[in-house]
């Protein structure tokens, strides 16, 4: 019996001694924690999505405390987080640089040609492994909805084999961007007036065979744009969101209808809005 008690006493004593040493050490050698970092970090959503460009919410909080980063880079946090973090730092809130996800493809089932019939696991990731999936166009949306499954805000639906993102529901967390195996979802500033719904760098003739609403790189849009906002590189047109005013001239001139100016009905409307 005595041995048992002795064992308990000795182990407890050992534990106490080391506990005291550790308590002493943590008090004496404490690292001064910047309170600002704590406050900033707790204001952030904590999703660690990396949309701000820093390594997780911890990284962004530290960068802001150091004065490196501006508040307002957190897109999931939105206006509220921008204002809270700005007030902690003592600066004016410049608002959030909103970015929304857009699918750069307009090829729903009725517009595309397929090169094979896929019978396999019904996910984009699996279908992409098999010679790049059903569509003849190697850049096209596969339509199995991996992006829709990844979206926690219900902003993505798949209609007629094409993923469509609802701008109002999208918060800009970028989860869909990383999930898409074709990498055709792009983050576009919230102020953008339009987008070219195609990602194909194939030559015009090849695109025409694969899809009737793809960009053929004809450059008609570049010629009619008065604001120098649209350019073609590698047979694909791209709109510069800073310069585009949303006049719709490019959409009118486009022979395939692949340019989508939000809320504008071009004269030869074809592609999905």
């Amino acid at each position, binding site marked *: 019996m005595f041995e048992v008690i002795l064992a308990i006493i000795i182990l407890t004593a050992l534990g106490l001694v080391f*506990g005291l040493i550790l308590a002493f050490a943590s008090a004496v050698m404490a690292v001064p924690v910047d309170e600002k970092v704590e406050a900033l970090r707790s204001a952030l959503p904590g999703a660690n999505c990396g949309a701000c460009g820093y390594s997780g919410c911890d990284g962004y909080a530290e960068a802001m405390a150091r004065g490196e980063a501006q508040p307002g880079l957190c897109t999931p946090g939105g206006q509220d987080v921008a204002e809270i973090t700005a007030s902690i730092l003592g600066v004016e809130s410049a608002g959030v640089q909103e970015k929304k996800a857009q699918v750069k493809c307009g090829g729903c089932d009725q517009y595309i040609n397929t090169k094979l019939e896929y019978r396999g696991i019904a996910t984009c990731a699996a279908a992409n492994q098999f010679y790049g999936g059903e569509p003849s166009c190697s850049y096209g949306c596969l339509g199995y909805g991996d992006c829709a499954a990844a979206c926690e805000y219900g902003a993505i639906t798949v209609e007629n084999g094409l993923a469509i993102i609802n701008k109002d529901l999208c918060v800009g967390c970028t989860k869909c961007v990383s999930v898409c195996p074709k990498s055709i979802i792009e983050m576009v500033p919230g102020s953008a007036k339009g987008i070219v719904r195609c990602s194909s760098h194939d030559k015009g003739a090849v695109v025409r065979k694969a899809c009737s609403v793809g960009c053929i790189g004809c450059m008609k849009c570049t010629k009619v744009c008065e604001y120098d906002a649209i350019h073609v590189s590698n047979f694909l047109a791209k709109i510069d969101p800073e310069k585009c005013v949303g006049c719709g001239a490019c959409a009118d001139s486009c022979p395939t209808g692949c340019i989508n100016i939000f809320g504008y009905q071009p004269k030869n409307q074809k592609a999905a809005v």
Partner: protein
Amino acid sequence: MNSTGLFPILIGGLLVNNFVLSQFLGICPFLGVSKKLNSAVGMSLAVIFVMMMATAVTWPIYTFILVPAGLGYLQTVAFILIIASLVQLVEIVLKRYVKPLYNALGIYLPLITTNCAVLGVTILNIDKGYGYLQSLVNTLGAGGGFLLAMVMFAGVRERLETADIPEGLKGLPSTLVAASLVSITFVGFQGLFGL
């Protein structure tokens, strides 16, 4: 009291009974931190430091407190307690004085606590019946052997980065195969000094 000389003990820990490659202790940091040479060295130095401190504290506690009280069986529990506290202490010191190393080691620092190499060396010192000085030399050899294995393997892994490895073996499988090949080479040291 073991009568082996100090130099054979040192060589024993370093080569003959290399903790990682011959006794297969401490594989977690070995595989986890050996990708880059500088973090491998940093990790090994931290392990050596913890091992030395652990031996310096556990041997007297075992010999002068546990054994006289007839509590030799509490060896494992007491040693774990001591090692855990020491690692926590090392973490606090590093965070305060050597922040870059603290950041580089990250998660691996608390992993040293449960690293069987550290507990292994303290228990083996007792099992082999070493005296205080012999224990310290053995630990130095063990820690040095850990450093040797880490540095060598970091070199091997940096070469593997550029090698053309078949798809099925990429990543961990090739690492494990390489580790076992390095381990086989250390079999050549068996029997040195009659160890």
